[in-house]
């Protein structure tokens, strides 16, 4: 069964504002997850510069031997990325769905401060539901 290992959301300056891991594989402590977030932010920026064609928006998919990393960048520079088992399908759609939840339950929440870590109960609840739904879809295949 294909599985999602973890989910990261980083703000436009590369700070980690949300991290969640699913299952025991690829679990990281707080320092490591912060490091991965800022590393990815820099790599993403460098990839834009390195691209031989103009208008490159950065890495969308990184395929490694043991994991895939799918990244989605919103218009405001907030990046969402999931680390999952190699070959997991439909991650773009999941990232879009997570982005939608972010705009609804984080940005419309008057108690959320921009660019700060996300602590919104409704976002957590709906995110869990979205990931579970995605798992059910994957299992059904």
């Amino acid at each position, binding site marked *: 069964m294909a599985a999602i290992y973890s989910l990261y959301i980083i703000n436009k300056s590369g700070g980690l504002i949300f991290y969640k891991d699913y299952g025991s594989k690829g679990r990281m402590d707080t320092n490591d997850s912060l490091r991965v977030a800022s590393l990815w932010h820099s790599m993403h920026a460098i990839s834009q510069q390195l691209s031989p064609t103009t208008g490159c928006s950065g890495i969308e998919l990184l395929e490694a031997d043991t994991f895939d990393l799918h990244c989605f960048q919103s218009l405001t520079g907030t990046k969402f990325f999931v680390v999952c088992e190699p070959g997991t399908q439909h991650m773009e759609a999941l990232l879009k769905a997570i982005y939608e939840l972010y705009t609804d339950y984080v940005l*419309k929440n*008057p*108690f959320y401060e921009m660019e700060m870590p996300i*602590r919104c109960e409704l976002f957590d609840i709906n995110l869990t539901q979205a990931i579970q739904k995605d798992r059910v879809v994957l299992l059904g295949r």
Partner: protein
Amino acid sequence: MIGVGKIKQYSNVLDKPLSKGKQEVSLSAFAFLFSELVQYNQTQVDNIAELERRLEDAGYAVGARVLELLCHRDKGNRRETRLLGILSFVHSTVWKVLFGKVADSLEKGTEHEDEYMISEKELLVNKFISIPKDMGTFNCGAFVAGIVRGVLDSAGFPAVVTAHFVPMEGQQRPRTTILIKFAEEVLQREARLG
């Protein structure tokens, strides 16, 4: 049947009846506006009770206007004069105009004669709002409580209205209850009217 339902052509734009306009607004637009309202008021206060009061006052102005508008539009310039009449007016007519649906329930308080409760599983203004843990029992439904108070007060039913979270069994999210406590004179008048 050809021609049935065809809109009558008016040569003069002034002869056209006024359109009723769109009855709905974008939920996102409202949510952002409401979020700004809360954020602005947060900068103006230094404690939570004060924030609650300010939101309630903002709602009060809406309520007073809504009553005026609905009495004119729906009731031919008449308004409810009895307690149960005005409560069901708030529960159904006002709720439908503001939130597009009738409120989930209207109950009489069990402990006190002068208390009534309007409950809503998911209050529209709270749809996207998560209250931080350090704010305790604060509820943005205070704005809706203010609307209810505005309607009741302007209709001649002074009351104290508050919004509370009530945990539900088997539900992850608590529901919001708008608690209405009428002034003594209202109940005395009701008793006189029989």
